[in-house]
């Protein structure tokens, strides 16, 4: 199961980077970036998974003592929480930039959005 997740995540990252490198429209670039980010999160969680184990929540049918052998690694899940929110924050700021850039130059094409004198 973890192979599919890792491969899928890696694929997502590569698609994201491809999107960022080749697409002309900045919205598509931002979408590429968020794809790249989500790919990262998938890989992050995928790595933490151990074969046929359950979520690390201690409750009635998962006593404390037996937890260590039947539970998945909780640390990546904690980290991914922060990573997702960071990804969100960056994308939000990027969208704000895209909005302003569009308002000032009425175009979304990345090659036009260069400074006038690029000496």
């Amino acid at each position, binding site marked *: 199961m973890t192979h599919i997740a*890792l491969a899928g995540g890696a694929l997502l*990252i590569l698609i994201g980077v491809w999107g960022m490198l080749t697409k002309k429209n900045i919205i598509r670039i931002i979408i590429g970036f968020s794809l790249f980010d989500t790919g990262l999160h998938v890989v992050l969680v995928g790595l933490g998974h151990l074969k046929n184990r359950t979520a*690390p929540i201690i409750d009635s049918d998962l006593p404390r003592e037996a937890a*260590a052998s039947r539970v998945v690694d909780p640390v990546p899940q904690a980290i991914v929480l922060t990573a997702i*929110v960071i990804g969100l924050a960056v994308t939000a700021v990027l969208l704000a930039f895209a909005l302003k850039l569009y308002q000032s130059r009425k175009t979304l094409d990345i090659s036009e959005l260069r400074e006038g004198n690029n000496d």
Partner: protein
Amino acid sequence: MVKKAFAFTLILGMGLLFYQLYRQRSTSTDLNKTARYYVENGPKETGSANVVTSVVVTYRGLDTLGEVTILFVAASIIGFFLKNQRNRKLEGAPGETSELLHTGSVFLVPLIFLLGVYVFVNGHLSPGGGFQGGAIIASGTVLLFLADPSIGAGRGVIHVLESFSGMLYVGLAVAGLFLAGGFLDNRIMPLGHFGTLLSAGAIPVIYSLIGLKVGAELSSILYALKDAKE
């Protein structure tokens, strides 16, 4: 066209790099030492049933604090960045959204908010927590905007809620320094009975504060983006 071909070779390079990464990952089927520590004495030390929450709030509490700051920074950036964009004419325009959405939202929004609150209050017991709850609340506000785009009320409340919950969170963290073992320690309040609502020390309080803050910040970002039209 050359650019695409060149990009493709770069992607191949990265793919090769990922493949190497993949081959070098550890294939042990057992928990590594930090994970084993968290699982074994996480519930005991922090008293929270959900081990992930104990990691997120106490063990790696500084990350969460940092992460909340990021959201706060993003919100205030978008706030002062798009602020002079607020166009007045949208304020009082009648909603031309469909009748079905309008009445549905009136009924659904409080339910969504309730669900959000439930999720971040029970953060330490059931899966989910501050961030997930906050996101649900934010989806509630999105529904509100879709229903009535000209809604302007509640902006002041959001700001107060946001900074108040942030200050409280920092206050609790600093309190941990003096009262309990260290910065962000949750034992400033009694651990209480394991598995019940008021257990695991300050975790539920912190998590709900985070939930409120995340919900407020996301809605203020959405507010700013909504009003930033031409």
